[in-house]
């Protein structure tokens, strides 16, 4: 604002010098190059190793892998688990989004929003232990016979991914203009009818987006499935892991990676079509204006959400209980031990927590920058049909990092980051690689959180601004930015949380003297002695608390930044 009043002439001149096309090319180019270098290339190198033998392409691996009965079982199990988990997440998550984002504020709402995100960042190994403590025959839910069952796997996947739906749908819902619903009510429509005919269609793009993300996370989950499902619930992801890390059978691993990619791309394609069919411009309003009245459905949603929150809390309570159990008594001994270097690990959990926070800061800004730019580019609706098609393809491509095995990416980075492009640097052991790899996982989340909101901006607003003489940059600043910044805040919280808890990709990367908290938890739990596993639980509670605080702080910042933008 200051800059504008003091030097309007220079600014306008600058705007004229950078034509729109060049600006958009840059906005698309930066994230594309990032994903190409740190994702596509490593994956291609790794898969290429499996298919190219003695400089000739050899595809007989497909026959070999698909002639095994287990491969088909594994593909079916992957689809079954992911579909079930996605359905349950959507059915439970939409009421959650209403209660936590749409309904009027209530005491502790911010805390609850942060709380539901906690499971998302917990390392799978800890959740596995906490869940098994509940479902195994001697546990409180043991009577249900859930141990090593399909239901246990789906429950755990829902536990992890519930917040994906709540947050993505919530970001949209809280800004939906309530007047459309009010008008329908005034015309005599019942509450459920208004929801089905007015609200749900408006939310559909966000719901489909979130469902796609949940599906991908579920289809590629590794630890959860192994720990809770037992050996019979192997997924494509676990097969890739075994073939790569244990057998070094790159041929089979490449076939499975490609299969995974095909499954993922098909689901994304379907989701993209569903989204395109449902997407339209919505009238969005600032949060505070979008306060609807109480309704019967709202009360039902609140009841569902309260139940879900209690269920989410169960494994977490089990975790806290185990962290406080010292032999036959209760105490804080395991927490006190977090400040000391753990025996045989060399780092204290507190030091690891600091490392985790630093890595997460880097991963977050990278993901927000890359994902924000991508979302901005993807939200455009160019006049040319070819350009629109390009964007649609781009849209699907952006999601692919969620659907590729962490092992494939990790091993691929190992193969491709030694003297990349002939440069005399060895990036394999560089500290920056861990946040970069975590950012590639977070980028799709950022895009999926921001994009539905940007797309819902009525294009007429932009046209009006342009007609009134605003240059393109100004249109972006006054029309898109205020809406985008809020969603970007949410996305940043998500990216931060993903990075804090990320274990899969991180564990396959070279980590020189750089232990993050999930890694320390994993190592503590792998050591003998009840004290070690108690400390692991305490460290996991610390991780959960950190992520909850981080998400709450970002929510707070977001509201502040949002209010600034709106007033400008």
């Amino acid at each position, binding site marked *: 604002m200051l800059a504008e009043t003091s030097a309007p002439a220079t600014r306008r001149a600058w705007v004229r010098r950078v034509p729109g096309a060049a600006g958009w090319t840059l906005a698309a180019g930066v994230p594309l190059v990032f994903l190409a270098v740190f994702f596509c290339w490593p994956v291609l190198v790794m898969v290429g190793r499996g298919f190219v033998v003695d400089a000739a392409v050899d595809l007989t691996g497909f026959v070999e892998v698909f002639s095994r009965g287990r491969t088909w079982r594994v593909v079916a199990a992957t689809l079954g688990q992911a579909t079930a988990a996605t359905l349950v997440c959507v059915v439970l998550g939409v009421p959650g989004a209403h209660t936590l984002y749409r309904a009027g504020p209530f005491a502790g709402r911010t805390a609850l929003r942060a709380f539901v995100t906690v499971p998302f960042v917990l390392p799978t190994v800890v959740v596995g232990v906490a869940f*098994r403590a509940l479902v195994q025959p001697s546990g409180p839910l043991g009577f249900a016979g859930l141990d*090593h069952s399909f239901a246990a796997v789906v429950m755990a996947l829902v536990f992890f991914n519930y917040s994906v739906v709540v947050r993505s749908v919530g970001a949209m819902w809280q800004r939906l203009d309530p007047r459309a619903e009010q008008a329908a009510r005034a015309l005599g429509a019942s509450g459920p009818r208004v929801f089905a005919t007015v609200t749900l269609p408006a939310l559909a793009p966000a719901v489909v987006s979130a469902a796609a993300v949940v599906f991908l996370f579920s289809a590629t989950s590794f630890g959860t499935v*192994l720990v809770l499902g037992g050996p019979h619930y192997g997924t494509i992801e676990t097969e890739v892991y075994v073939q790569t890390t244990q057998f070094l059978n790159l041929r089979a691993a490449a076939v499975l990676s490609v299969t995974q990619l095909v499954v993922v791309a098909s689901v994304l394609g379907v989701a993209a079509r569903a989204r395109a069919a449902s997407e339209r411009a919505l009238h969005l309003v600032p949060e505070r204006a979008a306060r609807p009245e109480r309704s019967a459905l709202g009360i039902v949603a609140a009841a569902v959400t309260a139940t879900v929150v209690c269920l989410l809390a169960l494994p977490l309570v089990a975790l806290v209980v185990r962290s406080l*159990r010292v032999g036959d008594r209760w105490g804080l001994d395991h927490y006190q031990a977090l400040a000391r270097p753990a025996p045989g690990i060399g780092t204290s959990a507190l030091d690891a927590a600091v490392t985790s926070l630093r890595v997460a*800061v880097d991963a977050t800004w990278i993901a927000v920058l890359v994902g924000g730019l991508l979302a901005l580019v993807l939200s455009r609706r160019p006049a040319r049909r070819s350009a629109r098609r390009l964007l649609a393809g781009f849209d699907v491509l952006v999601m692919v990092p969620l659907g590729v095995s962490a092992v494939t990416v990790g091993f691929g980075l190992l193969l491709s980051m030694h003297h990349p492009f002939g440069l005399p640097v060895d990036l394999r052991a560089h500290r920056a690689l861990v946040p970069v790899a975590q950012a590639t996982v977070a980028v799709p989340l950022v895009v999926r959180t921001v994009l539905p909101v940007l797309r819902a901006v009525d294009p007429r607003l932009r046209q009006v601004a342009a007609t009134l003489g605003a240059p393109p940059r100004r249109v972006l600043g006054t029309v898109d930015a205020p809406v985008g910044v809020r969603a970007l805040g949410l996305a940043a919280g998500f990216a931060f949380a993903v990075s804090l808890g990320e274990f899969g990709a991180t564990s396959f990367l070279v980590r020189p003297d750089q232990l993050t908290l999930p890694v320390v938890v994993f190592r503590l739990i792998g050591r003998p002695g009840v004290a070690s596993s108690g400390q692991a639980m305490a460290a996991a509670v610390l991780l959960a608390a950190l992520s909850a605080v981080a998400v709450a702080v970002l929510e707070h*910042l977001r509201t502040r930044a949002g*209010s600034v933008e709106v007033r400008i």
Partner: protein
Amino acid sequence: MANTQRLVVVLVAALGLAGCSLVGASGSDTSDGTVTLVTHDSFGIGEDILAQFTAETGLAVQVVTLGDAGSMVNQLVLTRGAPLGDVVFGVDTTFATRALDEGVIAPAPRLSAPALADAQAHALAGDDGRLVAIDYGDVCVNADLVWFAERGVDPPTTLEDLLAEQYRGLLVTPSPVTSSPGFAFLLATIAATGEQWPTYWADLDANGVQVAAGWSDAYASAFTAGGGNGDRPLVVSYDTSPPYTIPDGGTEPTTAALLGTCFRQTEYAGVLAGAKNPDGAALLVDFLLSDTVQQVVATTMYMYPVSTSVTLPAEWVAWAPLADEPFAVDPATITANREQWLNTWADLGVG
């Protein structure tokens, strides 16, 4: 103006966060005075010990961890032309010949540790001294003695016993496919039953064996004495696990390793082929054999040191005996058959 102030607050907060950045923090030490150690994620020698190496040699140690032992060896194979470090520690019996056959390990230039002779006793058959044994231990079935005493049942003693009716539904093992002790147990059964091992596992399955994903799921969740309130009094673990089950104020562990069910694992170190600092690498191998490290191998990595000149923890002497005649499978046979065995095992659908 108030808006601008808020904006400033937000920006300052963002910059403050960026100050925590890792990339912005000091980078890794890449000077010539560094030796890079590649190891698995159970490596337990802390910075305080490694600092002694730096004090003695002037070389800084950078530790690079690459997942479990199998994942580590396979990553070393993939990066053969451009190794990720100078020296590797943690190549185990089951992956040793793959590392050697693939040419990942180079002969070490002049080693001089006095414990080298002790290490020889554990050398890999057929190796020309490229892999140096550092520590070893047994993977054995562990029993919850309290559980068995309360029921007046004697714990099993052999692999054959595990098929008996009275031990139905009592055993939990980590999966051989995803866990290193799980694979060691599979090898023990292969050594014991030969070609008949699939039948043995089918019988084990019929007798209600449970298969967990990893060691911690088996020990810390399903085992009755692992702190997880589990319901399986028999678990595949290590012979060194029992001393960690001595209750507070007690003098005896509540568990014991069944020494008739053990598979011996040895962990080796070696200089990586194409190492930038092979001399530093050799010094580090010597250091791993020094009393300084050998003395803490037991307490940090739960393995027996190869050196006979260091003292073991008293509770190990009392409660963690080694098997007299552990099962063994020729390492080259393991490398040749690993995938086939594990595929066969997986197709049995055990658990």
